[in-house]
């Protein structure tokens, strides 16, 4: 008998946050669950043919269509009168960019599906290319820093706001550093009679380049600096916010990662750090993260 619904022996990098995310989501959802996934690290590392790490039914079709596949699965589950959870677990490349069309359709048609995005903020599987989720001034292979560049020139796409604009009844952000919070959000989302969207901060040891073992700490720092606010929206209204007890400057989060190393090397980096601090301050003010 497996203790977790994701078996060991998968090929994710040592110290990857994605399997921990899957474990926590499946823990909360239980065995009566069907999962659809897009292409990505998750698909490649958990299902190297002819093996599968999944202990629940799992289906992969294409990069762009897990939400469409799950929509069909959900309709069949409904038609047969079953009460089975239908979940999509995908990375940010699929969720924010490539699968946006089918995500939009799934949200808008109102399927009873939980969409979980493990957000590692770039296309990690193919070699750390920039995605719509890559934050401002992060170094990726397609936005390298150099004489003329400070890394990714654009801020991160606000995917929760896009989900809310589709009138998705339950939207939340979560972090692997807050497992109790994440599991509670998954349970709540599965009770919603309609679509739900949870975006989980999932540090990538290869793409973000950090020391082994600190992935949970990095994710915690993202929350404690205000760069990753933990928020719940029900019917478009903010219903719950995780307050920050010990607010930290964004430098503490940024300096743990190689993708921001240039900001601490270049003389003009200080101005950028100030801009990123302003982004965190805007989050803190918007969601009243500090009492």
């Amino acid at each position, binding site marked *: 008998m497996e203790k977790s619904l994701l*078996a*060991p022996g998968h090929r994710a990098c040592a*110290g990857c946050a994605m399997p921990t995310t899957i474990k926590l989501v499946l823990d909360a959802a239980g065995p009566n669950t069907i999962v659809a996934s897009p292409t990505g690290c998750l698909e490649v590392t958990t*299902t190297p043919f*002819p*093996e599968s790490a999944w202990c629940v039914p799992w289906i992969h079709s294409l990069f762009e269509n897990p939400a469409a596949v799950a929509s069909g699965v959900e309709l069949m589950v409904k038609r047969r009168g079953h009460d089975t959870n239908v979940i999509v677990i995908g990375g940010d490349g699929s969720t924010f960019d490539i699968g946006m069309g089918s995500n939009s359709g799934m949200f808008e048609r109102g399927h009873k599906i939980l969409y979980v995005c493990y957000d590692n903020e770039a296309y990690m599987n193919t070699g750390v290319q920039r995605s719509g989720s890559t934050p401002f001034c992060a170094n990726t292979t397609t936005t390298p820093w150099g004489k003329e560049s400070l890394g990714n020139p654009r801020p991160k796409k606000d995917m929760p706001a896009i989900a809310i604009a589709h009138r998705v009844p339950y939207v939340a952000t979560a972090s692997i550093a807050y497992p109790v919070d994440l599991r509670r959000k998954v349970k709540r989302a599965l009770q919603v009679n309609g679509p739900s969207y949870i975006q989980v901060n999932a540090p990538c040891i290869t793409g973000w380049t950090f020391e082994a073992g600190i992935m949970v700490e990095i994710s915690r720092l993202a929350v404690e600096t205000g760069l990753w606010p933990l928020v719940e929206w029900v019917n478009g209204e903010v219903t719950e916010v995780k307050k920050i007890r010990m607010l930290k400057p964004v430098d503490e989060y940024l300096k743990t990662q190689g993708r921001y190393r240039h900001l601490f090397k270049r003389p003009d980096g200080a101005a950028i750090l100030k801009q990123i601090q302003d982004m965190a301050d805007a989050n803190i003010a918007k969601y009243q993260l500090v009492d």
Partner: protein
Amino acid sequence: MEVKAGKLVDPCSTRITKTGAWRTFVPVVHHEKCIKCSLCEIYCPEGCIHQVEGLFVPDLDYCKGCSVCAHECPRKAIEMVLEEK
């Protein structure tokens, strides 16, 4: 020509691959310091540290030695030791 779409494989079947061979550092649990908070079990990306007869024991067949458990242990009860074979 018959086209067969998709392929089914057995659930939990990655168990046949012992990823423990990836490891450089091995977690050693000092059970006397352990307060059984189970944070190591929650955070372990492999899902390979569980309670065995009341003690948290990593399954070295699968442990990749990522040291997340050692780093997150609030009592520093897990030590990463260079593994020599």
